[in-house]
């Protein structure tokens, strides 16, 4: 197992390199001049050129990329064009918040999603199933932006129970988590429901019931356990997506996560920060996929890793 993990980590390096080249090229293809943006509208042409030189942006692109790679080898992601701070510092200042939001959201989504999916499968085509399926549809279609603001109006303004924004006050994580989890709950519940339906029809489940097993053991010990593989895949994939794609929720709730950092940096053409953040996301995604694969091995004893 350890061997497998090590090999996967080594294989991640060329992937990350590929990501870095693509991001680097795409950024340089975008119209927009970082030096002018940083200098501001009122700066003179000489000021802009000086800043361009100070930022190393007057060098040819391959030279810039080579410099970027050399810094990367020392785990130095470069310096932000806007703030002058190391990109690593900017990323690390926000990474814990992104991870916290994504982790609580996925935990909530997994709990509610699996529970809902199992119930919907057990009550297939009856009222409970219809209700849960309708809720799933709602969760998938509801715009994050609208749902988040509605939660703020209800819980922060009307009831005054929770903070409307920020990450510091106690309970500030609740509304963003609910908002972010809505979509994932629906996906996970959907997958759980359909896999459970398949599994509940299998011979071994029928046998288990015929043997006289308690219903609880049949559902959890046999059915759900066998359905877990696709469910875990969806959960893992959603976790990766939440890590990278929470910018709307972060904007609505003023949550200081990496999504906002990325979008702000992109609008300002802060190349080093965009490169650094995208690489971080890629690395996180690779790690999450690896964790999911390892989890497979733990759930299904038939899966062996050389």
């Amino acid at each position, binding site marked *: 197992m350890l061997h497998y993990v090590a090999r996967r980590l080594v294989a991640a390096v060329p992937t990350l390199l590929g990501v870095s080249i693509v991001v680097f090229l795409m950024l340089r293809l*975008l*119209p*927009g*001049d970082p030096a*002018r*943006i*940083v*200098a*501001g*509208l*009122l700066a*003179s*042409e000489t*000021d802009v050129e*000086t*800043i361009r030189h100070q930022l190393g942006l007057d060098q040819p692109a391959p030279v810039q990329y080579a410099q970027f790679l050399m810094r990367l080898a020392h785990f130095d992601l470069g310096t932000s064009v*806007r*703030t*002058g*701070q190391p990109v690593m510092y900017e990323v690390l200042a*926000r990474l814990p918040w992104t991870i916290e939001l994504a982790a*609580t959201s996925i935990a*909530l989504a997994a*709990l*509610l999603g*699996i*529970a*809902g999916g*199992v*119930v919907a499968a*057990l009550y297939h085509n009856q009222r*409970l199933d219809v209700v849960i399926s309708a809720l799933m549809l709602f969760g998938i279609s509801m715009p994050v932006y609208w749902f988040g*603001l509605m939660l*703020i*109006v209800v819980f*922060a*303004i*009307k*009831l*005054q*129970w*929770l903070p*409307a*924004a*920020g*990450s*510091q*006050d*106690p*309970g500030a*994580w*609740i509304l963003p988590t609910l908002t972010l989890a809505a979509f994932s709950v629906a996906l996970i519940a959907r997958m759980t429901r359909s896999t459970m339906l398949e599994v509940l029809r299998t011979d071994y489940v029928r046998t288990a019931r015929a043997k006289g097993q308690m*219903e*609880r053991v049949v559902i959890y010990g046999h059915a759900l356990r066998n359905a877990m593989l696709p469910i875990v895949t969806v959960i893992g994939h959603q976790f990766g997506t939440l890590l990278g794609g929470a910018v709307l929720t972060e*904007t*609505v*709730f*003023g949550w*200081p996560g990496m999504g906002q950092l990325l*979008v702000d940096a992109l609008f300002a053409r802060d190349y080093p920060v965009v490169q650094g953040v995208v690489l971080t996301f890629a690395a996180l995604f690779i790690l999450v996929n690896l964790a999911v694969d390892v989890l497979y091995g733990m759930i299904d004893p038939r899966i062996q890793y050389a």
Partner: protein
Amino acid sequence: MKRRAALRVLGVAGLASLVAACEVGVPQTPTETATDEPTAVPTIAPTEVTVASGLRLAIDQDPDTLDPAGQTNPIASSIVEHLAETLVRLQPDGSIGPGLARKFTQATDGKSYTFELRPDVEFHDGTPLDAPAAALSLNRFLDPQLRVSMRAPFDSNLVADITPLDQLTLRIALKDRSRLFLQKLAATELAIVSPAHARAFPDSYNEEPLGTGPYRFKERRKGESVVLERFDGYWGKRATYPALQFRIVPEVATRESLLLANQVEVIIDPPLSDLPALQNNPALKIVQTPTARSTFIAMDLTLPGGTPLAIKKVRQALNYAIDRDGIIRNVLFGAATPLDAPMASTLVGYSRVGGYGYDPNRARQLLLEGGAPQLQLKMLYPTGRSLEETLFAQLAQAMAGNLHDVGVDVELIGADWATFLATINVPADKGTAHMHLFNWAPALLDASQQMTQFVRSQWPPAGLATSHYWNPKVELLVSEAARETDDQQRQDDYAEAQRIVWDDAPWVFLWSPSFLLVHSAKVQGLTAAATEKFSAAYAEPVA
């Protein structure tokens, strides 16, 4: 059996979620007195704002840096001005008054200034303010190693040297006379920092600046908040609130929610569509300040292959076609004043020229006379996350509607700020759109800075005179005014130049947007200026 199992599953899941959410605090105990007014926006009477808790403000962007030298925008500058102060200060009437220098004089030849500093002023690190310290701070600003976006006119082309004459007297010698020297000295970038700050950060920014202001830096969480605490060694009037928390909330609806939920006391840039409701809310007060900013549609006079907008009558027609008052009423909800000159009225050197009223018939007539009764034009506008940028899309559509009514079909093209800037910042004959919606605010509130939009030497890429407009008479007047020492003559020069530009209409002159902040009615003493900077240094609870 199945039902019981299912219920148990739901029960466990529900309980687990509750346990996970058990951090929900006990509801705070506000005295919720519902108001009688049936407004669409929920209104709640504010809780007691105690002096002990500090003042909370919500702004829309995280400052790139807190070092005075790195300041480029008014919101971040506003925060920094609580921490660090300048030698002189811009007064509300546009003149220059004392700051850290209680007296200042200009030599008769105009090429040097002497500043007498206040005694007994301390920096936040306890060191005293004296002339050598001020000189060190200013020399740090001059050093090209330090990245400064807007040095001019305080740069090595103008400043000859900075000499402490004695402990509290500083002399700055210039290579030439400069009209805007004092205005620049009053800008946030030139706030005086302590010798320790200047020595430790000669070529980079200090994120924990050490100035002389009524507040000192306490804590910063990137993307979330900046917290300042009261400096008890301040030389001036002691601030009332022990702390100021600037919370960064990019979403405008969330900022308003924070205010309505009593989780902040002040917000900058409220949503304009909610202004009527906010104005009717007795628990809130709105501070609306005229600015130095002009919003306009710049027409590119030198498109490759020619442009119908090169004809003056066509440009004037577009000016008559826009219903400024209607748009200000319906899209901006009153938060702007129509322009009656090529610059905002708050600028020094402004001179009222007159209005292009809303006259669609005259517009159609002028288009006929200009030989272009049916036009198809492309208009660029910037898009983005800030309140201003979201408004631009609505404004562009409203104006396209006005223009359609007079026979001009406008294709609207939105681009993010960086792309927009790159597209308009091109030399003559390289433009790709007939016109673009833009705004411009001279940092030093002076007509000379606004008039750079109308001279050839500032055509891109040298400057941002993106309409590529040129009139030799205007060039002459502007360069004469820059050198003019007689105030009245300069005023006359600018007045004449503005009259010509207004008539030539290289822009569709629109309006000057107001700067808005909204605060709880239980707080007073918040101020805002035409520079779009605000201050909470003298805020206090209403008695």
